[in-house]
């Protein structure tokens, strides 16, 4: 088991997240795919932290901050989705085109 294993897994998770963000229409499902991408980044960070020399806590600390920002992001995004649903009765992002030129 080498660093490369974890890096490739992170890349695969990230790519699946990219597909989800691009292909989905529901705001909630796009948010789920976004969480996948954040987790892929965290896997990479922690893998580098574990395999790096000398042992250092920086990778894990930054992963903690990523998780913090992800929590804040989910809370805000859910509030926006609720608002969107109340105002328009739908969470389909294709219908949110108020700022379309």
């Amino acid at each position, binding site marked *: *088991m*080498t*660093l*490369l*294993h*974890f*890096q490739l*897994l992170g*890349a*695969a*998770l*990230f*790519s*699946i*997240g*990219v*597909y989800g963000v*691009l*292909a989905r*229409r*529901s705001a*909630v*499902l796009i948010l*789920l795919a976004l*969480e*996948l991408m954040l*987790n892929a980044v*965290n896997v990479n960070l*922690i*893998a580098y932290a*574990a*395999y*790096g*020399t*000398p*042992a*250092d*806590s*920086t990778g*894990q*600390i930054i*992963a*903690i*901050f990523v998780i*913090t*920002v992800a*929590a*804040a*992001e989910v*809370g*805000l995004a*859910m*509030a*926006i989705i*609720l*608002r969107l*649903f109340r105002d328009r009765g*739908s*969470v389909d992002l*294709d219908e949110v085109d108020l700022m379309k030129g």
Partner: protein
Amino acid sequence: MSLSLAVFYLLSAVCLAGAIGVVVSRNVVYAALLLLVTLMGVAGLYLLLLAEFLALVQVLIYGGAITIVILFVIMLTRVHEFRAMRDNPQWPLALVTALGVFALLAIALVNGAPDETVRRGVSFSRLGDSLFAQWAVPFEVASLVLLVALIGAIVIAREREEGEEE
């Protein structure tokens, strides 16, 4: 094949299967629960990487909090609408893009990876020391970010009173 490698492949299979389920599932509740499966698999990977604290945080915050918030919002919005909601017509393009991203990353990683095989963990006390000494200011800023996000979420989501100015 060593035991840790076998565990790694098992956890990777769980993670990837869950992740693919998240992006293809028609039912949004299933998608949220499959995300939970993926997140717990990732927590297992953290254990494999000797990051016990991160594994705990992953289970508590992602498993306990974020998934619950997502499920709450799914319940508060209309569930039956989700089931009829198809994916974008551009999904083949999205598939090509995702495969392209993966190919690019994989090529770069395979060519550039240092061949490290030794894993080193960081003890809880060392992690705490550096979090509250070296990273004290970013830590406080993170708490401020959470507070602002919380207040913002309440302001955005609350019902407006009759006749209240927007």
